[in-house]
């Protein structure tokens, strides 16, 4: 057994639809150590959410095919039955969902939603579960937890709801926490609070975190490593600073340059990625990004690039015509 908490090997998730097979995740491999924060960045349809759910073993069981391997703390997730997964969920791996409005049961008091997990999974009695739930609510920064315990989700603000979701996810002290766009619907000031909270809790619970987002700003200062996804595949992965300062894949650069920055001057013209992401059910044979890439050559349209090593350790990219490595650290 390796010392990795999570090992993902050639993971493929394919949905069977009327329109044909949709390879939402098309051969993804990476691993994750203990106490690490991995950022997974991608636009809509890049497969990041499906990837997260596949790692959790949470994808629906019909009309989907998963191949490859996900080793979570030594346990294989791919092909595991719901019964096996049930024993891993909450205790080994837990998830914070994107929209706290829809991820909490609207007709259950929030306290019940937390202590339910404690009672079912850890066999706590009513009183102990109640006490622990209050403790968790306080830990995630909910003021006057005792009265909020009896509140329904609709009575809380978005930020508070997300704190409840986090408390629920942490109830059984998982070793891995997957946060799928945990701050997307939230205001910037609340987003900062939630991200700081996640950082604190990560230390406190000594767990690993996978932070999934479309916003490079969210992972820039929070993640130790970053995976950039495009059309269900890894476009580039590496240490955070390598991705930001030594990226080789044109898509990574385009993503960085097209996002507006607070430090830009007014009327800064943004770099634009022409076109749209490909339709997954009719993927081009070559590099998925080739149709939109300014550097694409004949080869890019014909042959799909595999991940190759860059100069920095652990830094890999999938590109036939990579950008030169500007090791001096010129910023985009």
């Amino acid at each position, binding site marked *: 057994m390796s010392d990795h908490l999570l090992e993902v090997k050639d993971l493929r998730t394919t*949905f*069977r*639809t*009327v*329109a044909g097979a*949709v390879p*939402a995740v098309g051969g993804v491999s990476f691993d994750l150590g203990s106490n690490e924060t991995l950022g997974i960045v991608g*636009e*809509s*349809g890049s*497969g*990041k*959410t*499906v990837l997260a759910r596949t790692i959790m073993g949470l*994808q*629906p069981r019909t*009309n*989907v095919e998963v191949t490859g391997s996900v080793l979570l703390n030594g346990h294989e997730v791919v092909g595991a039955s719901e019964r096996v997964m049930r024993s891993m969920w909450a205790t080994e791996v837990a998830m914070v969902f*994107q*929209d706290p409005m829809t991820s909490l049961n609207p007709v259950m008091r929030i306290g019940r939603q937390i202590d339910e997990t404690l009672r079912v999974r850890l066999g706590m009695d009513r009183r102990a579960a109640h006490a622990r739930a209050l403790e968790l609510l306080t830990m995630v920064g909910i003021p006057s937890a005792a009265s909020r315990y009896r509140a329904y989700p609709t009575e809380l603000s978005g930020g508070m709801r997300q704190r409840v979701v986090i408390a629920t996810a942490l109830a059984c002290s998982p070793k891995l926490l997957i946060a799928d*766009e945990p701050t*997307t*619907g939230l205001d910037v000031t609340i987003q900062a609070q939630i991200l700081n909270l996640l950082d604190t809790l990560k230390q406190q619970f000594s767990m690993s975190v996978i932070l999934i987002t*479309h916003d490079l700003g969210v992972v820039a200062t929070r993640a130790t490593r970053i995976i950039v996804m495009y059309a269900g595949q890894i476009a580039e992965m590496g240490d955070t600073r390598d991705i930001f300062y030594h990226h080789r894949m044109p898509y990574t650069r385009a993503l960085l340059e097209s996002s507006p920055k607070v430090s830009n001057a007014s009327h800064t013209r943004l770099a634009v990625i022409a076109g749209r992401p490909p339709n*997954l059910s009719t993927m081009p044979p070559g590099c998925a990004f080739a149709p939109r890439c300014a550097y694409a050559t004949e080869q890019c349209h014909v042959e799909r690039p595999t991940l190759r090593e860059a100069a920095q350790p652990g830094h890999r990219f999938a590109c036939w015509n990579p950008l030169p490595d500007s090791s001096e650290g010129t910023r985009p």
Partner: protein
Amino acid sequence: MTDLLDEQAGFEPLAERRLGPLFWICVGWLTLNVLAALLTNVLPLVNPLYQNYNVINAGPSLHHLFGTDDLGRDILSRVVFGSRVSLAVGSGAMIIGFGIGMPLGMLAAYRRGRLDAMLTAVMYVLLAFPAIIAVIAVISFWTPRTLLKLIIVIGLASVSLVYRVIRSATLSVATKDFVTAAKVQGSTDRRILLRELLPNIAPIAVSFLLIGVATVVTLEGALAFLGLSVNPPTPSWGNMINESRTVMAQNPWLVIFPSLALCLFLLCLNFIGDRLRSYFDVTEVKL
């Protein structure tokens, strides 16, 4: 925010955006029903009231495809003529219901404010009134009973239901940004109601209309059973079944054919309504 939706679009196999052959079979059957009811005078049918004592309680034969009843009347002819009552009540009542309920519902949902509050309060009270009891009560007091009165009473009783469905359907569209955009561009209210709102609520209205017709036809059948619909000897599906249930053991055809006609008719209406709803991706409207 859109991320999850976009990705999940691939999760479920997309609902088939086809109406399917069964849908068209149902449409065909209904069309046949309507045509037969309209063309009774042209069709080579025996007078449904003509009593031929030579063939009493006969089973299906070449002369009488559906057989005859205890008075020697031709069942096929009576079933076809009976459908006229069902169709008249079903369509007539729904014309009244939609004629009043639909414009009011659309207007209330689009205008909001006081008009909406007032109308909705009135309709709320009417809705709480058990419509069936109201219909039975009015029909039994408002003598003599005629088909027209039946249609008017059922039609008026359905107004509040139609209003509620149309209002909530309109409301879900009227709050969309494209309606605001149209307002902002200076489109008149009339234009907005007809061009932006109507096309979007039409699928809901049509499928509700079909189910409404089915409900009214069932109700007419029940009323006929209770002797509150058209008076015999005028045939209607309901009173045909009712009249012959006592002789059912001797001549089951008497019950089977009108029942079959009624059930098939309802089945087609329900099926078409159901398919249309899923075709236009209308979430289940509470009836």
